[in-house]
């Protein structure tokens, strides 16, 4: 069955409720919707904001490649990925991933897979702005994120 894929990269905030309302009506057979919201934290007051740089064009293309891989692997009816760039303050959304399916496990797996690959393959970079006014540094990539991606490798790829 064809899967509706919606990919958005934008600076503006997005409406999570409206996105969920749309995807749950993608198909009368949707029985499970999993959503993931990635939210800017203040890290116990340390951060004033995160600034997200991205590679326009490749960001959308790479998210599209990741989404198509998810569709190959799980029986999902619809996927939505929205990723913001620019300055984002604590409490605001950075990323939204939605997966709709007939059954819950496919929706959980597809959403979790999308997040693990977004973290390590989508061309976005976070720079910190500190609450004390000083310039922050670029966020380091986490080895835990690479490990999270590795667990999705198929046996033939290991």
């Amino acid at each position, binding site marked *: 069955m064809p899967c509706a894929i919606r990919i958005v990269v934008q600076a503006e905030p997005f409406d999570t409720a409206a996105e969920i309302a749309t995807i749950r009506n993608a198909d009368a057979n949707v029985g499970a919707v999993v959503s993931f919201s990635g939210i800017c934290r203040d890290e116990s007051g340390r951060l004033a904001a995160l600034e997200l*740089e*991205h*590679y326009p064009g*490749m960001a959308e*293309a790479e998210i599209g490649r990741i989404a198509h891989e998810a569709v190959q692997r799980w029986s999902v009816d619809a996927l939505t990925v929205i990723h913001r760039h620019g300055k984002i303050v604590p409490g605001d959304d950075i990323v939204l991933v939605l997966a709709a399916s007939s059954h819950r496990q496919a929706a959980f797996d597809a959403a979790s897979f999308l997040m693990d690959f977004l973290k390590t393959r989508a061309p*976005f*970079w976070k720079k910190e702005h500190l609450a004390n006014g000083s310039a922050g540094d670029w966020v380091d990539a986490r080895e835990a994120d690479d490990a999270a991606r590795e667990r999705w490798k198929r046996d033939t790829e290991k």
Partner: protein
Amino acid sequence: MKLIYFAWVRERIGTAEEEIELPAEVTTAGDLLAFLQARGEGYAEALRDPKIIRVAVNQEHVGHDEPITGAREIALFPPMTGG
């Protein structure tokens, strides 16, 4: 050929993008990193640890041993931290 830099690679090189003519012997992504390292202090600083630098050719990730000949657009950047 258009080269594009992101995040701290961009900051250290000091420019977001540039047009460059590559010598014929620069045929892989790894060759390109070595070639650029010799172009000046900013490049050397940005590409000091080439292992961690990611390369995209025409907006797709490539490994350092992959060919870049004929590419329209090549981007160099640090490991991604989105999501």
